[in-house]
Structures are given as C-alpha cells and as structure tokens.
C-alpha cells in the first residue's frame, strides 16, 4: 500500500514541508533573477558582474541552509553500496 501522507502535521513536520517547498521554489527564483538583466538590456559589464555574482552567492547561501534542513529529512532506505555486490539496494 502507498504511504498515506497525513493532512495535518505538528510544527516540526510543518516547517519541514515548507523547507521542501522552498527547495522547489529556489531554482525558480534563481531563474527569474538570472534572466532579469534581459529586462534592462545589459548595461555596463562591471555592474553586470556585481549583479550576477551577488545573485549567485545568494542562491548558494539559500541552498546551503535548505540542504542542512533537508539532508536528514528523507529517510534513505539504501545503505552504502560501495563495497561488494551482495549488499546493494534491492
């Protein structure tokens, strides 16, 4: 049977779900920001560099916090499979 997701969860679970939402939305936000320069048509390269690297750093920082939050969230049934053939995920 498929796992049933409860409709309402306690606060921890709630925060985790929102972190997952944020993880899904972050690349969308990133894409929008990266495409922004089109709107003002480039301009000076030095300003462009500052903008691009600022957005880039922001994405990295956002991803850093989200990955810390989400790293242990997903129960990972498969164990380390790097040794031998017999203990792989089946």
């Amino acid at each position: 049977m498929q796992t049933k997701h409860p409709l309402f969860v306690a606060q921890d679970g709630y925060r985790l779900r929102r972190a997952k939402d944020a993880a899904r939305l972050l690349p969308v936000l990133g894409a929008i920001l990266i495409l922004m320069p089109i709107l003002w048509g480039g301009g000076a390269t030095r300003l462009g560099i500052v903008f691009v690297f600022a957005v880039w750093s922001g994405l990295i920082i956002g991803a850093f916090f989200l990955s810390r939050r989400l790293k242990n969230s997903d129960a990972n049934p498969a164990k380390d499979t790097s040794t031998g053939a017999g203990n792989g995920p089946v």
Partner: protein
Amino acid sequence: MVPFNLLVIVCLLYVGLLFLVAYAAEKRAQQGRIGWLRSPLVYTLSLSVYCTAWTFYGAVGYAARSGLEFVTIYLGPTLVMVGWWWALRKLVRIGRTQRITSIADLISSRYGKSNSLGVIVTMMAVIGTTPYIALQLQSVSLSFAVFASDQPLNPNLPDLNATALWVAAGLAFFTIIFGTRSLDANERHHGVVTAIALEAVVKLAALLAVGTFVVWGVADGPIDILDRIEASPIAIWDIQPDRWITLTFLAAVAFMCLPRMFQVLVVENVSERHLATASWAFPLYLLLMSLFVVPIAVVGLSTLPAGTNPDLFVLTVPLAFDAGGLAMLSFLGGFSSATSMVIVAAIAISTMVSNHIVMPIWLSLRGEGATMSGDVRQIVLLSRRVSIGAVLALGYLYFRFSGGGTALAAIGLISFTGVVQVFPALIGGIFWRGSTRIGAAGGLITGFTVWAYTMFIPSFGEGFIMSAAMLADGPWGIDWLRPHGLFGIDGLDPLVHAVFWSMALNTLVFIGGSLLSFPNPLERLQGAQFVNVFEHSDAGRGWFGRAAEAEDLLVMAQRIMGPEQAQALFQSESNAQGREGYLPDATPDFIEKLERELTGSVGSATAHAMLGQIIGGSSVSVHDLMAVADETAQMLEYSSQLESKSQELARTARQLRDANQKLKELSVQKDAFLSQISHELRTPMTSIRAFSEILMDGSGRNQKDHQKYSSIIHDETIRLTRLLDDLLDLSVLENGQVTLNYVTANLSEVLERAIAAVASSEVGYDIKINRDTNSENVMVETDTDRLRQVFINLITNAGKYCDAGDPKLEIRVNTKTGFLQIDFVDNGCGIPKKSQELIFEKFSRLSDQASAGGAGLGLAICREIMHRLGGNISYLPGQGRTAFRVTMPQRRALEKAAE
C-alpha cells in the same frame, strides 16, 4: 621562461601522482576502508568534471570575445544543483534502486529495457562526445606548444599531432587501468573518482592563483580591475536575450544529460545526502571557477599584443609577466581539466558501448544463449577496454582531421546541443508515466537529426557533405530547408536556431508518439517504478511464475559477476530461503534480485535479455500486470472491509450498551411499578373488604349508610376493573389479536368526541383547548374508536400532568401527502431528555404523583394502537413545551387491508 623539458618532467610527475592516488584509493577500497574516499566533499569535487579545458581556457577566451555571456554556462548547472529537490534527487534514487549504469541504460531501462533505445542514446553520446574529447586533446597540445615554442604568445608547433597522440594514449592507459578493474557494485570507480577530486582541487587552485596574481599582482586590487573592465573592449555588456536564455537552458540541461555528468552525478553517487551537500557546494565551486575569468580576460586584452589567442590567456598572461611557476601551475590546471573530462567520458561511453552494442551483438552471435561456456566477464571487460581505446582514437582522429582551428567554445556548444536531445525522454521518463518507447525513440531520432542538420554538419564548413549552395539556399534550392533558416525563419542566431528547432521538434514527436502509441507491459511496469520511485523503493516484480533451473542461473551469474561474488549471492539467498548449499529456489523474487545485480554489471537490457534466454519467453504479460493490480486492489479492499467491520462492531456495541441501560432502567421501573400496583390494588381491596364487612354485620345501620358503603364498594371495583381492562387491552394489542373496525370519518368529529369524553368524565380536568377546525376537517379511514382512545389519553395526560398555572392544550393538524400529523402541545415544562425514551414503555411513570392515579399504561397502549393503525406516536422534542405527535395514514394501508 620555463624550460620545456622541466615542464615535461613536472607533468610526468603529476601524472605519476595521479596514478599513485588512484592506486592507493583502490587499495583502500579493497580493504573496505572507504571512509573519506566517499565523502560529500569528494562527491562535490568529482562533479567538477563539468569544468573541462573548455572552462579552464575557453571561458577566458569566451569572456574576451563576448563579455559576460560566458557565465550562462555555469549559471545553468547552478540552477539545476540548487533545484536538486526537483530532478536530481529523483534521478539519483532511481539510479540507485534500478542499478543504472549509464544514461543510455536509464533510458533503455525506463522504456521497457529496450535495447534499441540504448543503442540510439549510445550512438548519440559517442557522436556528441567525440568532438569534445578532441577539444580536450587540442587544448592540452596547445598548452604544451605554448611552452615549447619560441613565440609562446602565438604557438605554432609542427608536432601538435604527436603531442595529442601521446596524451590520448596516456589517457587510454590510465582509464583502462582504473576504469575497468571490476564490473561489480554498481560501477563505482574509487581510484578514478579520487584522482578526479584531486584534479578538481588543482584546477581550482590554479585558476584562483592566476586570478589572484592578475588582480593583486598586475592590477591594484578589485577596484582597479573594475576600472580596467570599464576601459576594456568588453566594457559594455551587450546582452542578447535569446542567446542568454538559450545558453542558460542549454547548460542546465546538458549538466544532467552529458554522459560524463550522469556518470559522476548518478552512477558514482553513494548517498543521497551527498547530493544535499553538493547542492550548495558545487555552485560555490563554479562561482570560484568563474570569479576571475573576466579580470584575466581584461588584463590579457590590455597587456598582451593584439592577435594573441585569448583561449590561452590563462597561460600566456603569467608567462608575459614572467611568472614561470604560476604558468606551470596553470598548465597543470588545464591539464587536469582536460584529462579528468576525458577519463570520465571514456568510462561512461565505454560502459554504454559495451552494454548496449557489444554485449547484445555477442549474445545474438552465440545463439545458444548465456549458459554455454566462456567467461562473459572477460568479454565484458575486454569490450570496455577496447571501447575506451576506440573512443580516444575517435577523439584523436577528429582532432587530427578537423584541424583544430575552431574556437573552443563553439565545439563545446555543438556537443552540448547534441547531448541534450536526451532531455525530453529523460524528464518525461521520470515524471510522466504515459511516455512510451515509441515516443522516446521518435523524439531522440528527430532531435538528433535536426541537430546534425542545423548544427553538427554545417560546423565542418562548406564542402563537407553540405555544399556552400546548400548552406545558403537549402537542398535543391528549397528555401524552407536551409540549415540555418528552417521553415523560412531567418535572423535567428545559429545556436538559438539549432537549439530551438531540435528541442521543439524532439519534444513534439516525443509527446505525440507517446500519446498515440501503446506501451508494452514491461514498459508500464518500469514506468510506474521510475515515476513513483519515492512511493515504493523496493523492486517491482518483473518475473512471474516461470520456473528456471537455479544451476543455469548460477552458471551464468558466475560468468558475469565472477565465481566468488555469484556464489556468495546464491548462498545468502539459499540461507534466506532456509536451505543449505548454493542453489536456492529460483523464485520470481530471487530472479528479480539477480537481474538487478547483473544490471549493475552489464546494464538492464543485456541483463534482462540474458535472463530471458534462460527462463524463456517474455518476463511479464498484461495478465501478470493485472494480477499485481488485483493483489493490491484486494489488499485495499480487505483493509477497507476490516475498517467498516470494526466500525460496525463499535456501532453494535454502542447499541447493546444503550439497550442494556434501558433494560436496567426498565427493571427498576418494573420494581417500582410492582410496589405501585400492589398499592393500587390493595387500596381498593382494603376499602372493599372493610365496607363489605360492615355490610355483613348488618346491624345499626340505616339505609343511607348502606347505600353509601355499597356505592364506595362499587366505585372501587370499577377502578379495579379499569386497571385490569387496561392491562388486558395492552396484552391483546401487543399480541396482535385485536380486530380493527375501519370506517371513514371526519377527524374533527373524532377529536370532538374525544374532548367531550374527557370533559364529561368525573375528573373533569380544567384545561383550555385550542383547535383549528379548518385543518381538522379531513376525512380519514381508520378505526375511530381506537383513535379516539389515543386522543382521550393524550388530552387526559395533558390535563393531568400540565404543571402550568393556566394550562392550555393546542391541537394542530397537518395534512401531508397520504398521512396526517396531529400534534398535541400543552404549555407544560416538557419531558427531560433521558425520560423521552421511557415514557412509551409499559408501567413507566415520570413521577410518583398520587394524583396521577394511572398505572403508567396509557402511552404504551397509545403506541400499540398507532402501530396497529399503521401510524406512530412520538414525543416531539425541542418545542420548549410538552408535545406529542401522532402520525397516521389518511387511508388504510394496503398490507393492513390484506391482513
């Protein structure tokens, strides 16, 4: 100036170090001490095979030519990594559960383990990767030439080809040694990955060192650099929206689809947690790699003489400022970039070629199947080694014959566009269950053809396959088929044109083909497992019920996995089944598990085909699929049945509890009634006895006393008779022995007579009765005597029990279709909720009011009468007053008539 010989020695030492590191890592892994070999850091660094020599040298050249546009190549992958929760996490999970060995294997496995799809993807990968490998060889040769030539700024070395040949041979050697050591365990290559992680550090360090040198050594810090940018030819950022969007998209998609990226991202992944770390760490790596690209380009443009090849600024800028050591480091960085890409690409491609091309051919040539003699393992390894050699040879030949003059970035983008044709089939495969093999194959072929026509073949220039006239006017002068202006749409940038049309047509055919075709059962099974990988990470059943000889399976498994591993696997399964020895029952589950193990070695299609040869026939039919679905449905049904049963039980238990409670109360009431009735019977009896004794005495009594006493006796006997009559009446009604005399009468008359009867009785209750004679004027067919009895009882009750100072009774009649509602509402205080159920029971009385004088049978009789008449009487709650409702049919019911 660094002497060329010193450079060669340093380079050889570096290569020796790589060999040592790879060897040590393999050794450690063999001893089972994985530890840091498989840390998130190593995983992140191994992803840096994305940054090839194209990045290392080419990005600066790109920036020198078109300014900031080069960052799109890194922003795309950044978005994909940051969005790991969408696609990469799913890809990695699928790769791990399905034991995917390459991107061709993923596509083939998803679409029903179809080998033809595997072949298509493999061919595309080979064609798309060869120019890229050539590009790496070219950049290494060029960088050697920079040091060897007298004019480092514009190297022109006659034996460029020889250098490339040596590099290619060395890389093939390294890859064969460390890339094909074993077939086992999901194709993980500890030695190679560790060496690549080291190379990743070297290339980052080199680029950062050159960047630091440029910013703080040549210029006076970041502010000065920004000023220099302002003064340089690329001061104005002339953004081209179409190219900006297309390149970002292309880089993002290629990051997932490139065979070498798939290899390090999915196949070599050990844990999904590593992906979480890489989601920010790899974008950070990319940011650092591109941080100094523009500064180096600007300084190169301003300090080096015009005409210098900007693709080599990373090397030539330090050389121009006489920083020999730095140039050497930079050279090693470029060397690392090129070699790591070639090694991983060769491993990925050779796995595909051997699993999807060589093995199927070999299997079909040996028609008897996989059970005959011969070590399959050696064949697989040999085919991989040969494939690695062939891939590098192809790269070398491409380099040799293309002349190597083109700008690096152009080749890179051509290769990217070819490889991303897998994207629709890949994404559709993991998110859309409806995508089919036909659609995927159609989309792949369409996209690839369009790519070849609009981009790949024209890149060789005029005269190669396509004539100048064909390029300009289209084949046979058909304007709509011009390679750079399909469908007559002109003015697009050639790259945007090729990417747009190839992806659009590819996706269109993929979706259309999927919608129109019908997948076979295995496709549907695999589709469900890929798309819903997070719901059920366990293996789905692909084999049903067919018996296979365990011995045959063992023979085959030994040949692919090697005797030791195969025997260990069989033995552990045997133990798990509770048997001794090496031969377990060949259950479907075990065959499934075995197939998965073999998939890790030879790919899903080959493993499936080999098992199919032993087991015979196709593995899964529509019938089997239905059986699986049925099982699930049955389980669901059982559980819902159980649920409803338990609910029903709870309901019954509650009813029983209620009934029990009622019985208890009734029992208490009955006891009370018994004492009451004894009292009721005893009181008249006592007076009858007393007065009859007086009469018996006869003496000293006058006529008047006689009369008085006998009238008391008479009254008391009437009271007794009435009580006994009631009891008898009820018992007759309850046993159904009553005979009803149906007549048609006016309800108003019945009520009139009932009220008159109450008024004329000796008790003569003082209650005011409100009636609505209009609504009462209905004809009913009923037993009027019995009905009147009910009305009398209700009116009497109202008179008896109404506790209001000024008692009033309201009688309301409602005519509904076919039946009547007659409500008796007085202005008393109502009946408490807990008593509402009890008042209709026999012998129930709410109070001990002696004045009531009844035996508690009235309402019970009323209810019996109404049931006999086909109606009902009930207490009407929620009126704020005492209210009873009599419901009765207007006509005699048919079944009653039949009785």
